[in-house]
């Protein structure tokens, strides 16, 4: 972040900042690569390329110059999923700017998850919600792709909408799930559970140790 610090080369970027004395509030979250809080841009000596990483998952390098981008402004459309039909047109009505994409692929190059960002943006543009959901699935919504987009797209929010539409309605629902919810509603298992609830620890142990176990795959 423009300062020079001497740190052990075994550390991650996040650990190196802490080693240098930063007690972080922003730019740190799960510390396991799942939350997108520690998105970082950096350059290394003798290389003009911008590089992108999660600070918690990336080892420091000599002469690395870096800045964390803990937040990047982006609009989120207003909607209630339950009131949407889940059509491709709705996605493009809520996020019309997706049509401004001109395919430069800078987003894909900036993704620390190596997601084919342009691939899912293209899927949204051609109305293929299922592919957009599938390709974007590993997105941690760090916003680095947004920060680099010359068309100013907030694509991770559009992808989230696609995944929610897909989960709610495009993939076929599970008949066994609906049936089980109805069975529970009608009290089918209440007696079994009442019996277990009142069983002595010895009885529970006997049943537990003797229970049949479904073979794995």
């Amino acid at each position: 972040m423009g300062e020079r610090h001497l740190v052990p080369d075994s550390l991650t970027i996040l650990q190196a900042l802490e080693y240098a004395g930063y007690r972080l509030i922003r730019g740190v979250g799960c510390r396991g690569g799942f939350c997108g809080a520690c998105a970082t841009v950096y350059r290394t000596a003798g290389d003009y390329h911008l590089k992108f990483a999660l600070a918690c998952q990336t080892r420091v390098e000599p002469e690395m110059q870096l800045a964390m981008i803990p937040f990047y402004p982006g609009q989120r459309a207003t909607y209630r999923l339950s009131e949407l039909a889940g059509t491709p047109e709705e996605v493009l009505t809520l996020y019309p700017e997706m049509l401004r994409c001109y395919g430069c692929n800078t987003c894909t190059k900036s993704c620390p998850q190596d997601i084919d960002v342009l691939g899912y943006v293209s899927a949204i543009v051609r109305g293929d919600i299922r592919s957009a959901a599938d390709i974007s699935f590993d997105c941690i919504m760090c916003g680095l792709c947004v920060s680099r987009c010359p068309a100013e797209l907030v694509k991770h929010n559009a992808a989230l909408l696609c995944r929610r539409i897909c989960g709610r309605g495009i993939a076929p629902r599970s008949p066994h799930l609906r049936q089980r919810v109805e069975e529970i509603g009608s009290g089918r298992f209440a007696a079994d559970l009442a019996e277990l609830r009142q069983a002595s620890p010895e009885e529970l142990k006997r049943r537990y140790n003797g229970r049949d176990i479904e073979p794995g795959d």
Partner: protein
Amino acid sequence: MPYPSSLQESLAKVVSTRERRLKEDFPRAGAAARDQLLKENHPDYRADTFATLRLGPNAGDKTPRELALLLEAAPLLDTAALNLASPDYDCDVLIIGGGGAGCAAALTADDSGSRVILATKLRLGDANTMMAQGGIQAADKPNDSPAIHYLDVVGGGHFANDPALVEALVTDAPEAIEWLEDLGVMFDKNPDGSMKTIHGGGTSRQRMHTSRDYTGAEIMRTLRDEVRSRERVTVLEFSPAVELLTDSTGAVTGAVLLNLNLHRHYVVRARTVIVATGGSGRLHYQGFPTSNHYGATGDGLVLAYRAGARLAFIDTMQYHPTGVAFPQQIVGQLVTEKVRSLGAQLLNAHGEQFIYPLETRDVVASAIIRECSRGNGVQTPVGGQGVWLDTPMIEIRRGQGAVKHELPAMVRQYARFDIDIAREPIIIYPTLHYQNGGVRIDPDCQTGIHGLFVAGEASGGVHGRNRLMGNSLLDVIVFGRRAGRTAANAARKQIREPELTLNHLDRWRRELESHGVTPAAKSPLILPDYTRRES
């Protein structure tokens, strides 16, 4: 080649035994063997690492020293500068914590028409829920039932679980899955729409529902998006609670928040309060590394305890058997149990199995600790130890590409350090993962303190002394929803405007004094300090 030459000999043994092991089923341990394994090896049984609480509702109970220090601490809040007469915020239901339980509670309280404020330490969704990989349990297949699920839960919990809480957990489970699907969570499915389900440690049916190995993240980002689409819900980020507020009868009536960016306190008046602050892995019990989120410092337990709530099972923590032991940069981070669900075996330095891979977590963790203490562990290049987890077996058993498809997060995590887990095994060791206990609740998430409700990892009783994989994501949804509903109902009945005092702190200070306890810390901790200490 990522593994140094010192590990090559052991690695070669893993490869050479693989063909034989593919046909080899290590026997499950019997009940007596399991008990002995735990007593001799599990960190919960290391008596010298525990302290006995001297005051409060759990006086006389044992808990890890690190937690005792904070439970018996002085309040962090400087009450002198605080003006309780004109609260900064007013609401029906205040939810403290923005993880899975907090967000589920916010949604159901909002459904009930309550004015909801959700305050959270860091960003909305910054929580252990986001990091849960393996899956979520629900007995929704024809060969399964809530009663079978119940038996697995109490057996895994060593028959100590609160029966009413377990009944609620397993009974609500299928509906919880359906609710998540309605919100747009993408579960892994077969082409006909049926759920792809697998085993977890200690399950007797394949009832683990997954979203690749981003199950928690998929649930969390969906809940977060739904909370953001609710106009009546106010979200306050970077605003952890530093104290609860009570009225003259001892009922909880709000909280004091600390905005971490502005260093300012805000007073929230509420008719009911839900504590959904999660766990405490960042206290690093017994010096263990942790798989937990940066903010998992047990704040909710401290606040509820000072307000008079009783805790349960605070003498038992979960050490996940498979934390990363190498490479050093990600030590302690989680390797999902799904790796074993998919068929990977655990091996010692000689390439031999030593435990059935899908015993419950406490048993597997104990077996790994024992294997290493017997000198059969793998020495990592930085002085640690661990055992092999033979990930290439998944690829052999399930076909080429299976690892990449089922475990994209794991593949990515290791690829960043040049290890291809589809081709090379990995080295793991137990990591501090879950707080089995917490604030004692009933099935409506009531705590015995009027106005105070608790849900999720901050609660205690659901999982007894050991939680099964896939029952934590289930817990946060089931009890988060229950807390939201019951807190909203209770708020509606609370006609009188809540009175705001800090009387319980006066009582707390008097109790510290009368027990002759000089607090050695201030609490809540809020965040751990990993800045370098001058030595």
